[in-house]
């Protein structure tokens, strides 16, 4: 099971690390206090920074969601005015997508990719530091727009022109800068992850030996490289339209507002997969561990991931069925969208077959992973319904869509992140997370999340449009249920914070291999993982992969 340590030290491995990490890590080795965190180039410390940042953004974005749910608790305008409501929905979306989910995955990649491939650090440690610190600056700027005259962005996280250009508040220029910075951070992170995975694998580890978490991240990183420039391009065009009198999206000057939507969704749809592929990877690592059985169809899983990534570039206009596309385009995008269901289905079938005839236990990470499979699949089903273009005319821009993407992103992406945190906390801190609080957190979250999002399906089908601060009386019951669920889900996240703090401070000691069924490379390291690991690469000849 264990690799043959100590290794026979092939020298080219450590030399391949740019600028020899050992050398410049020494310089901050003795540094302490805040400066150490500011200047750290260690992948574990940067990973921790990413995760802390992501958690704080998750809480801030969550508070905004609660403002929205509070206003929607009853029909009528009670708490906030429509202007502020729109800023809350917009900021909630932007913060959750760019500030919470994406950085959380990058943080997990920082921590776990080097540990799972036997690398001493990320390939570009200083760049790593830079790409992290861009984020707090970007999001401070984004949050600051709320205090500017005219308020913050109020045009939805999809910021459709011309509402986001000609009719936007003055703070939009800052919103664009903030998004640019977050985008650069993602691109740099992606470059780093690609360079690490392709070059720093321990000798003896081939691509097809990598864990699915590493695989899905590799593919995600390529997606990021491909679509982040498109986002940067589209917001730059907005900037030019707003400040320099161009007319990319302004019909008055010969531009076309629909062009914005094509460009945005050409970025936006792969972005959806950027937020879910690493989640697939996490679940594919956790399920075999607690089923004590090899992942079913490893190769199929890798291929399905690649397939989804390719198809994700061919389906963007299914977000635009109601915009007035020609019939041929509607049909094309309907067919491709239906096709993408196939590899996604393959993944779900593989996880379930992994469970079949396993030897299953239900620790907190497994609970979250199982909830992911069920609830993500429900989100997949509503996605399939949305793919049927004629029916989409009824679903489009209603709460049905809100229910769909929240099912995919909250009990989907967010649950996978929570599963990953519970799964790897023993490796990070050396202590097991409190199982009892973990279970409370899980069950309250599952009940809350379903009470929050399931009624939204009905509200949408009954005809409630999204992004409205006030609604007709027939939607009242659904919204009240959603709001109660929202508060339940929101406040149970405090338990999550509590578990993490408690686990960092102490708890049951975890051995190197914290979970009985775990078999990946990180579990050969002591718990907690020391600051520097795999400085001489492990020799993996004979290591039993996944």
């Amino acid at each position, binding site marked *: 099971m264990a690799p043959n340590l100590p290794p026979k030290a092939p020298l080219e491995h450590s030399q391949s690390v740019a600028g020899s990490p050992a050398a410049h890590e020494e310089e901050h080795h003795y540094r302490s206090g805040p400066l150490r965190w500011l200047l750290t180039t260690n992948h574990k410390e940067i990973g921790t920074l990413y995760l802390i940042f992501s958690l704080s953004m998750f809480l801030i974005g969550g508070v905004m969601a609660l403002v929205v749910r509070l206003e929607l608790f009853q029909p009528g305008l009670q708490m906030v005015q429509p202007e502020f409501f729109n800023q809350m929905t917009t900021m909630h979306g932007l913060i959750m997508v760019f500030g919470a989910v994406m950085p959380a995955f990058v943080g997990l990649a920082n921590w776990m990719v080097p540990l799972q491939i036997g690398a001493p650090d990320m*390939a570009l440690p200083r760049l790593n530091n830079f790409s992290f610190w861009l984020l707090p600056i970007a999001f401070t700027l984004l949050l600051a727009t709320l205090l500017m005259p005219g308020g913050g962005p109020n045009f939805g996280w999809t910021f459709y022109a011309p509402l986001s250009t000609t009719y936007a508040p003055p703070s939009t220029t800052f919103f664009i800068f903030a998004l640019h910075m977050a985008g650069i951070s993602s691109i740099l992170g992606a470059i780093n992850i690609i360079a690490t995975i392709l070059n720093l694998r321990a000798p003896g580890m081939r691509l097809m030996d990598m864990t699915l978490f590493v695989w899905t991240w590799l593919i995600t990183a390529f997606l990021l490289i491909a679509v982040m420039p498109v986002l940067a391009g589209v917001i730059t065009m907005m900037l030019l339209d707003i400040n320099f009198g161009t*007319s990319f999206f302004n019909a008055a000057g*010969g531009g076309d507002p629909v062009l914005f939507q094509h460009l945005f969704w050409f970025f936006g749809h792969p972005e959806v997969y950027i937020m879910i592929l690493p989640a697939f990877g996490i679940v594919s690592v956790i399920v075999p561990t607690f089923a004590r059985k090899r992942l079913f169809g490893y190769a199929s899983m890798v291929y399905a991931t690649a397939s989804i990534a390719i198809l994700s570039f061919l389906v963007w206009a299914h977000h635009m069925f109601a915009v007035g596309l020609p019939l041929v385009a509607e049909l094309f995008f309907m067919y491709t969208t239906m096709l993408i269901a196939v590899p996604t289905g393959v993944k779900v079938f593989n996880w379930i077959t992994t469970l079949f005839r396993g030897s299953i236990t239900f620790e907190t990470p497994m609970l979250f992973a199982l909830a992911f499979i069920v609830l993500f699949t429900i989100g997949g089903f509503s996605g399939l319904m949305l793919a049927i273009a004629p029916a989409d005319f009824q679903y489009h821009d209603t709460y049905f869509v809100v229910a769909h993407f929240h099912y995919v992103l909250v009990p989907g992406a967010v649950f996978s992140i929570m599963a990953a945190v519970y799964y790897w906390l023993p490796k990070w801190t050396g202590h097991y997370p409190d199982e009892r609080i973990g279970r409370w957190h899980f069950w309250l979250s599952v009940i809350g999340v379903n009470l929050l999002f399931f009624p939204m399906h009905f509200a949408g089908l009954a005809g409630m449009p999204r992004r409205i601060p006030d609604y007709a009386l027939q939607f009242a019951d659904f919204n009240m249920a959603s709001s109660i669920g929202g508060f339940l889900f929101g406040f149970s996240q405090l338990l999550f914070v509590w578990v993490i703090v408690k686990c960092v401070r102490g708890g049951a000691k975890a051995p190197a291999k914290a979970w009985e069924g775990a078999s990946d490379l990180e579990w050969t390291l002591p718990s907690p993982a020391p600051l520097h690991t795999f400085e001489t690469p492990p020799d993996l000849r004979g290591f039993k992969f996944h």
Partner: protein
Amino acid sequence: MTPVQRTVTKTLIALLMMVGFTIALVPLYDVFCQITGLNGKSASQPRAVVSGEVDESRYVTVQFITRTGSGLPWRLEALNRQVRVHPGQAYEVRFAFVNHGKTASRGRAVPSVSPSEASLHLRKVTCFCFQEQRLEAGEKLELPMMFQLSSDLPEGIHTVTLAYTLYPVAEGPVANNKSTSMQGGDA
């Protein structure tokens, strides 16, 4: 070059290619729109009448809608609101522009065709929408629009709607950039 540097270089090249691709998307979109008729954009250049067979077996109703965007004290009126033509037949209709403002100003009529599939089969020989107009205060101007629906117009299309929306063209150099250099096809 170390392997890491090689990978980073390759990734950066891919990144630059995507940046280039993004920039190219704007003109590509316009080309794409004109080829496929996406969004009801019609050609921004005059085209010659094709003298072919006139399909006298059927009539197509062509409607003209005129609208004025905000900020321009003009009125645009279609003097022929609706005409019935045979596909293949060239036809001329007239539009009246009136500036009821107190100063001279410039405007441009932006066309849109519905159903969008029809824009592929619409040939505009002369149209005021190809260039901006300048009207003195109180000036009234009548302009022709000559068009031809090609005889291969799909059978299913019986009505073609042509909408023109008047937008102001701001005076000054910025405005010139706006309508010429930044946009490839200005619909």
